């Protein structure tokens, strides 16, 4: 559910550290009718122009706090709230280049009551903000 609303339109930007481009970031929402404690977000998959970003190069940021995906697995006091726009960062020195990119964004969730582990994906063409 909410598959096509996971990636927020118009949100792709370069991710900069100091004055160097270190990758891209965009706003992402959890494809679910409620929020989820971060320890239950099993995986966040990002691909830019068909190129899978390694798990260790993905960062998740909400309300000013930044987590690696491995860190999130033991975070029991923070959430990705319902409809909340988190910043998803894909690290790559020098970034992914100017122009329009195909952004693929997948989330795998561990949901206690479901007899399966859902992965939901969204793909959008986003123009990199100047």
């Amino acid at each position, binding site marked *: 559910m*909410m598959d096509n*609303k996971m990636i927020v339109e118009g949100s792709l930007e370069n991710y900069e550290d100091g004055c160097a481009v270190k990758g891209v970031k965009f706003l992402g929402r959890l494809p679910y009718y409620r929020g989820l404690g971060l320890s239950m977000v099993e995986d966040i998959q990002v691909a830019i122009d068909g190129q899978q970003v390694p798990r260790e190069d993905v960062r998740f940021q909400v309300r000013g706090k930044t987590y690696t995906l491995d860190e999130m697995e033991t975070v029991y006091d923070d959430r990705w709230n319902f409809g*909340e726009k988190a910043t998803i960062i894909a690290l790559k020195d020098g970034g992914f280049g100017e122009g329009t990119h195909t952004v693929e964004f997948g989330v795998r969730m561990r949901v206690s009551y479901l007899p399966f582990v859902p992965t939901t994906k969204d793909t959008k063409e986003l123009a990199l903000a100047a």
Partner: protein
Amino acid sequence: MAIKRGVSLYSYQNETFQGKMDLEDCIRTSAELGANGIEIIGEQTFWGWPEVGVEDEAIENWHSLIQKYDCTPVSHDFMLDYKRYKGRMMPHDEQVASVKRDIDFGARLGMKFIRALVSIDPQVLVDAAPYAEEKDIKILVEVHAPLHFDHPWIVRHAEAYEKSGSDALGFLPDMGMFLHAFPPVWKEKFLRMGVRQDIADYIEKAYEDRVLSEYVILNVREMGGEGPAIGMAETMRHNAAFEPKRMLDYMPRIHNIHGKFYQMNEDYVEPSIPYDEIVSVLKQGGYDGYICSEYEGNRWVEDAMEPDSVEQVRRQQVMLARLLGETETPALKTAA
């Protein structure tokens, strides 16, 4: 005493997710339709719940809106994430403590009920029941398809509640378990996903003929179906046309109803769930709680169109008001 109308704010999820409706919009819309009972999923409506907690200010806002629109808090639906820790189940005592926090949260919101998901171990609820009694809250397990009132798991819950002697334990049936026809919005979505028309027609007909799901799945495979075609057939594993009258044995413990629906047509009919029969059974059983609208068609149409949750809820409320013998037709006062 009469059956009352309410709305689970779950119904408006497509709008609230995108920030197109806020809590006041949800409560005002429901109240205008005469659906004064308000049910929520705590962690959908209140950011922060349960891991971070909720500020008193948000709770005060809730109460002032409930008062402003003359509504009644009905149920806080809680989740209990017993798989919070990767690779190990949350221990029993911690689960009970978690339910107690949801009892407290329900009490802060003025709820009479909190909803438990059906997969929760009955003993967890039994052990939380004395605390619920103290707080004047009932814990209701949601009986939801593919489970039903004759399933051994539900029977086990019922036996545990009887043995406990607590009247703080009960049931919240979801009307989706009485799925008498294959929902047209499901079929349309599977067709959009590429299921062949003849296979989709076959599955719809097999559902109508009450054919066992496993036979249907095999037949679809033999017809050359794969991927979404198998997915469509597999919905029959999780849904069936159970009988509304099976609720009658459990009436003393049924305190809230999820008025699940997948689509309300312009003629105010839900084509797959027999609400006339359902309301008649509830009246026969002397039910005097709320039926809360629970629109779940959103996820079946969102790939093709923007769901109009408010219009869907309005139509269901018109249907319910008619079935309940109300003389006034529910109507929105403001453009949504």
